[in-house]
């Protein structure tokens, strides 16, 4: 399940996220960005480097009360 969300109308198409993505999972055209769900491992590196905070990591809903799922566990 893809946990990375792209905030609409905020991306500057700079490519910083693409440069750190270990899975080649980001498609970046002149004015369009998308994540290739089948490749993305939800590692969140793209989220951390985005200079404009365009990418968001949505924590999956808690499985049990109190236990949240870290990005690693969701692979």
């Amino acid at each position, binding site marked *: 399940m893809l946990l990375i969300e792209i905030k609409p109308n905020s991306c*500057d198409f700079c490519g*910083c996220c*693409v*440069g750190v993505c270990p899975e*080649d999972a980001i498609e970046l055209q*002149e004015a369009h960005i998308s994540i290739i769900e089948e490749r993305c491992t939800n590692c969140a590196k793209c989220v951390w*480097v*985005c*200079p404009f905070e365009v990418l968001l990591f949505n924590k999956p809903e808690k499985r049990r009360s109190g236990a949240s799922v870290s990005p690693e566990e969701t692979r």
Partner: protein
Amino acid sequence: MKPRYDVIIVGAGPAGTTCARYAAARGASVLVLEKDRDVGMPVRCGEAVSNRSLESIVPIDPRWIAATIKRFRLISPSGHIVEPDLGGYGYVLERRIFDYDLARLAVEAGAEVHTKCYVDDLLRATPASHAEGKAIPATDPAPGTTADNAQDGAWKGVSYQWKGERRTVEGRIIVAADGVESRVGKWAGIDTTTHMRDMETCAQMTISNVDLEDDACEFYFGNDTAPMGYLWVFPKGHGMANVGVGISGMASKKTAAIRYLRRFIDQRFPDAAVLTTVAGGVPCATTVGTLVQRNVVLVGDAAHQVNPLSGGGITSGMIGGKLAGEAIAMAIEKNDLSLLNNYPKQWRKEIGAKHDTYYRMKAAVYKFPDATLDDIAINVLKLREDKRTIWGVFRTALRHQPALVWEMVKTFGLK
């Protein structure tokens, strides 16, 4: 566009168009594909270069120069100002004009440049032997044995999208000049992913209506201003400046670059008009280990040919493009792909080894807490004025790491 070229270059930045110029000038047929509608736009760059490195690679046109820089100011966290003598001067370019002109020079040398072409994959060659079930040989063919595309290497061209249509074009050699967001190298099996620590994530505003000295570049350091990076103010003349910040991806995990930039501009230039705001990334690592993989060649940011200490990649990427362009022209002329390997060798000799040392200097300097940075500034200011060179600054900064100082002295031939 023809169906087939000697060389296909992906990306029309300075590295790609310089590679195109050198390859085309020596007779290769060259196609440059650029995804954006306009070469060189938007400008995601502070635009500062040193006069010497730019002169070494292209005759300078005064139209490219927005400001000539005579002074470099390093500002420590508590505001101590060090103005080291760099032994040369610098320019702040107008890259809108500069990048365009580099493309024009490539075209004048015989290259074709096409915009709005988004390259989305490499085309795998299917030589006769492959069709019969034999694998493509794992090593490059012996010199002089390459006859046509099918045997040249594992890739025979690229596919690209143009106005929503998928098209293909063939090339004997494919150059990844696709910048920080490079994917072409990855498709060829080269690991070009930038480690988060080494990705300097940037935000920059070009502002006007500011009162600045037009011949001074400022660099601000400190954990509150630009953790594991720096903030720059580069004048562009006419009361304009590029003000930007670059921080390591590790620091960006906590607070994004744009927040540091907004805070600085609000404090320092409250009355400025913001003309542009851009995001960007700079791969401040050592050069990618594999610059040539069969018939795929990496140049510029795509090859991490950036000075990892300063983050400057315009001229070093152009030098990468030039060296690759020369090797490519030779490989085409002699019909021998193994000649491409001259490029990594030359790169290492001219620049690569220096970047390795810069990388170690960066790793050392970025660990310093604010108090140490202030201390360095105070100690440099105690030096005799003629000793306040950029090397004087680094000698002072790294005085507790004599091995690194010695490496600096050796690599850069310092006295």
